[in-house]
């Protein structure tokens, strides 16, 4: 689960890391009082989870109140359905540092990554001048040792006072990484101000989804989703993305679902939604179809090839769902795997025509979608 900037910064502040003065607003009316707290110039920052906000015009520097009002108004009307905007003081910046903790799957360690050339072009830097990014492996049994934090902080050629603060910040941020079971915690940029203070200019915190059972502080809210279907899927823990195409996918297994997605595109079709009801969700055919039916589409394509996710169970679920939901569009089924024979019987008894080849099922769905 990815937190919003304002949430990540709240976590940082609790960990002892300085953040800019800021106020979170949910409509333009709250701007005036926010500006009184924050002062001018300020930065108007849309709270969305996508990256590249600056380049997309979702983060704007506003020297005057007029500009702040104009930008805030514009952003609250944006297509992205921005719900929250952070009004933040503009900090006097001397330097921008990149700091992140993540895991290294190859070496099986944590990883502290730091560069004194932080900012928006850090990914480019990783490719062109990887030596400018320091990577320090962390034995997760011991955690980040102070000597490592010190070693990295003092190796950057910064003034001693800044290095000292940076060492402390590494240790604080590592605590966040650990306490929040983070896949990633990142400050980019970390500002070095004119008076040598360190302030987190931005904040990313991605909590490992597998650890969410013990990470209960931040939960997704309905307002975090673009559509009702997405929200409902999230409540069920069913991976789901909504698009604009014709074919609603209701497949089992992430790899298979994306492969079907590929095949539809190869064959000239378009996708209305991605829905993956495999693994722990294979008994949720009813709910899955309910969600798929909320999305405008011309056909629903069901492809599975399950092992633990048994074909007979999924077939029965689909048949039950059809009976209960009485779908308004055709359904193509390609269900294989454990207890396939029983599945086929179940589907046939409900009047469905089982297909056994994925490409054939894809072509059939495209035909139906195109009304051929």
């Amino acid at each position, binding site marked *: 689960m990815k937190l919003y900037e304002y949430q990540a910064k709240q976590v940082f502040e609790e960990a002892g890391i300085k953040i800019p003065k800021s106020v979170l607003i949910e409509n333009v009316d709250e701007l005036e009082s926010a500006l009184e707290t924050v002062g001018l110039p300020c930065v108007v920052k849309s709270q969305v*989870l996508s*990256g590249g906000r600056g380049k997309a015009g979702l983060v704007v520097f506003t020297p005057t109140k007029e500009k702040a009002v104009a930008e805030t108004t514009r952003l609250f009307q944006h297509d992205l359905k921005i719900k929250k905007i952070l009004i933040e003081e503009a900090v006097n910046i001397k330097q921008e540092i990149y700091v*992140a903790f*993540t*895991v290294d*799957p*190859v070496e*099986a*360690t*944590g990883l502290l*990554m730091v560069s004194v050339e932080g900012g928006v072009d*850090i*990914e480019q830097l*990783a*490719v062109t001048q990887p030596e400018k*990014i320091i990577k320090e492996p962390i*034995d*997760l*049994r011991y955690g980040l040792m102070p000597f490592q934090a010190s070693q990295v902080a003092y190796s950057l050629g910064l003034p001693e006072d800044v290095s000292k603060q940076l060492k402390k910040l590494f240790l604080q941020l590592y605590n966040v990484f650990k306490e929040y*079971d983070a*896949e*990633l915690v*990142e400050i*980019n940029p970390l500002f070095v101000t004119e008076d040598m203070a360190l302030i987190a200019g931005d904040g*990313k915190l*991605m909590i490992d989804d*597998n*650890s969410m059972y*013990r990470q209960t502080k931040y939960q997704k809210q309905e307002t975090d989703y673009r559509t009702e279907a997405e929200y409902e899927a999230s409540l069920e823990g069913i991976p789901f*993305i909504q*698009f604009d195409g014709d074919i609603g996918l209701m*497949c*089992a*297994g*992430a*790899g*298979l679902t*994306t*492969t079907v*997605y*590929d*095949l539809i595109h*190869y064959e000239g079709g378009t996708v209305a939604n*991605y829905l993956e009801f*495999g*693994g*722990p969700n294979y008994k949720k055919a009813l709910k899955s179809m309910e969600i798929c039916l909320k999305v405008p589409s011309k056909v629903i394509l069901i492809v*599975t*090839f*399950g*092992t*633990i*996710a048994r074909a007979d169970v999924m077939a029965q679920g689909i048949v039950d769902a059809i009976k209960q939901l009485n779908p308004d569009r055709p359904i193509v089924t390609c269900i*294989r*795997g*454990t*207890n*396939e024979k029983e599945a086929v019987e179940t589907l046939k008894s409900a009047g469905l025509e089982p297909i056994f080849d*994925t*490409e054939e099922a894809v072509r059939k769905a495209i035909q139906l979608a195109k009304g051929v």
Partner: protein
Amino acid sequence: MSIFIDRDTKVCVQGITGKEGSYWTKHMMELGTNVVCGITPGKEGQEVEGLPVYNSVKNAVAKHEIDASMLFVPPKFTMDAVMEALDAGIKKIVTIADGIPLHEMVLIRQAAKEHNAIIVGGNTSGVISPKLAMMGSFPHWIDRVYKKGNIGVMTRSGSLTNEVTAMIVKAGYGVSTLIGIGGDPVPGTRFAEFLNMYENDPETKAVVIIGELGGIMEEEVAEEIAKGAFTKPLVAFLGGRTAPKGQKMGHAGAIVTGGKGSVEDKIRALNGVGALVAERPRLVGTYLEQLGVPKE
């Protein structure tokens, strides 16, 4: 022959008395797997499928020679179960758990390295040598997928593996050993780390890897081939090529891999060492034929 597991491999099952544990133990044995006992705390003295159950792996190894442990244990207890198996000296461990916390998976992989052990998974169906033996949850009786043959398969996916393997079989091939390394960001063992076993397995004539976007495991495979450590034909299938990018891992993902990990990178790396990358599952069989892999 096979790699990782055969009928001599003595297997214990941690979590044998659970629903999944007992169900798949039956099927593992039915295939011919040499399951010797099971472990569930508090159930010592019971039997499952005629096998004795012990309170701990320690008790089990005191009574049986055990080469490998199969875990049917929920994700949040997986690290503990892995540590228990390692502590008892077991060097091959398969965990199918889907949902192991990331930081724990890092510790699991580290512990495995420290113990010179191999962990397969989590988030996988396990390892199967068709018609011989398996550790995991494969419906081995589906001939359309689990046909014995000479192709080694390694995969990060579940259902997609069946899809691709069915195509390999349809093309007239069969599988020597299939290893599901698992779909988690940190699998216990990586593609490249199994290549050596496939290289040394006389039965395996070629290897198919079923990869994913993200990470650099396919690039690592290419490196092994480039080094000459793996010399057999290799075909890869990568799903999700046209899919929109999901939530990006900040900048960090790209920085960790130094900008590697895109589909283009993977294809370039693999093609550069003579491996082929299939666009569709169906083409995997076609490419094996193109590479001259014999069907017998």
